[in-house]
């Protein structure tokens, strides 16, 4: 790809030599103390930092490593696949009792599962295609996913009062929120294979 490399560099030797031998610029002598002073002024206020301080070992152990582009996309695809299967199972297998036949919420659940599947698959594709650019969009998408789960859960509480449906609602909501939290962690830990693409300055 880069033929006659040495020869090509040699033609710029006059320039590169000057740059290579240029004086290294240095910051002021009190640079380190300045940084440390600014550091002590800062307080860790984020909730995650506080939680991490409370449970340092658990947090570092569980999600200490970075998540690459492929891994992050995989998590979204996997979660999307879960909702796809769930949506189809509910669509094909859910036989509503007569008392619930008109319950809009319950009959909407198969479609809701498929919507979530589509949204998560979209997030997965976005991360996989270009995680650097789409990571903010994916973060927003994860929040949207959590919001949809919460809204759906509340609607279930208001519209369906049968114990079985309430049980389904609770399980569905808790599972969804835990998944959203884990996806959120994965997005925060997003770190593609190359360091540069990962670190957000």
């Amino acid at each position: 790809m880069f033929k006659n490399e040495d020869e090509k560099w040699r033609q710029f030797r006059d320039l590169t030599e000057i740059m290579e031998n240029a004086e290294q610029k240095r910051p002021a002598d009190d640079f380190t103390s300045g940084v440390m002073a600014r550091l002590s002024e800062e307080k860790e206020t984020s909730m995650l930092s506080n939680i991490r301080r409370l449970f340092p070992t658990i947090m570092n152990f569980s999600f200490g490593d970075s998540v690459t582009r492929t891994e992050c996309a995989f998590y979204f695809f996997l979660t999307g696949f879960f909702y796809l299967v769930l949506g189809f199972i509910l669509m094909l297998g859910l036989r509503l009792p007569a008392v619930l036949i008109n319950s809009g919420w319950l009959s909407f659940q198969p479609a809701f599962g498929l919507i979530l599947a589509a949204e998560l698959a979209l997030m997965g594709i976005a991360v996989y295609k270009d995680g650097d650019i789409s990571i903010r969009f994916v973060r927003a998408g994860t929040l949207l996913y959590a919001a949809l789960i919460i809204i759906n859960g509340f609607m279930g509480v208001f519209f369906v009062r049968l114990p079985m449906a309430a049980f389904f609602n609770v399980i569905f909501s808790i599972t969804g929120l835990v998944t959203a939290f884990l996806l959120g962690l994965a997005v925060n830990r997003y770190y593609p294979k190359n360091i540069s693409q990962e670190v957000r300055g």
Partner: protein
Amino acid sequence: MDQKTEADIVARVLNGDRQAYALLVQEYKNPVYNLAYRMTGNPEDAEDIAQEAFLSSFRQLSRYDLKRSFFTWLYTISLNIIRNHLKKTGRRQNDSRPLRSLHDAAVSDTEKAALQDSVNSDGSRKELEEQLESCLGRLSPDLRELIVLRFYQGLSFEAIADITGFSQSAVKMRVYRGLEKLREIMQKNVTSSG
């Protein structure tokens, strides 16, 4: 500082020993500052950027993968901050400074030989450095950063590939293209001032 020492210091900082971070700042302040200076051409901006880079890396320290080199990670953060700074200020290094005559840094073969000779004298070397810096400021930031990393910072192509996310061959191509552009800028300046 080797990677294990870096990892130990990072672990200490993450466990609450904030002062240990000073060791990392002390170790890497010069290259980070030099990078910022070469990219912005302004000592005050370089100082601010270097400070921000260390503060930013401290804030993100929990995301740092201990298996990686801290230096590479820090450089990546620094570059992102520099890019943002250049975008915000919307100016290129030394744009405000008029380009000086580059007769001494001429580009024909005979002049190259003369340049090599002149590099050996301290006075003209200093002048050449300044002239080259001026021309470097006219390069696009993406090419400039690769040239700075390679030649002013003395990093290997492999390290630059790690920092920038390009493949090694892509880095080489871009550095080569950057040098060509740099030469072009110098030629233009010679023509205009001649």
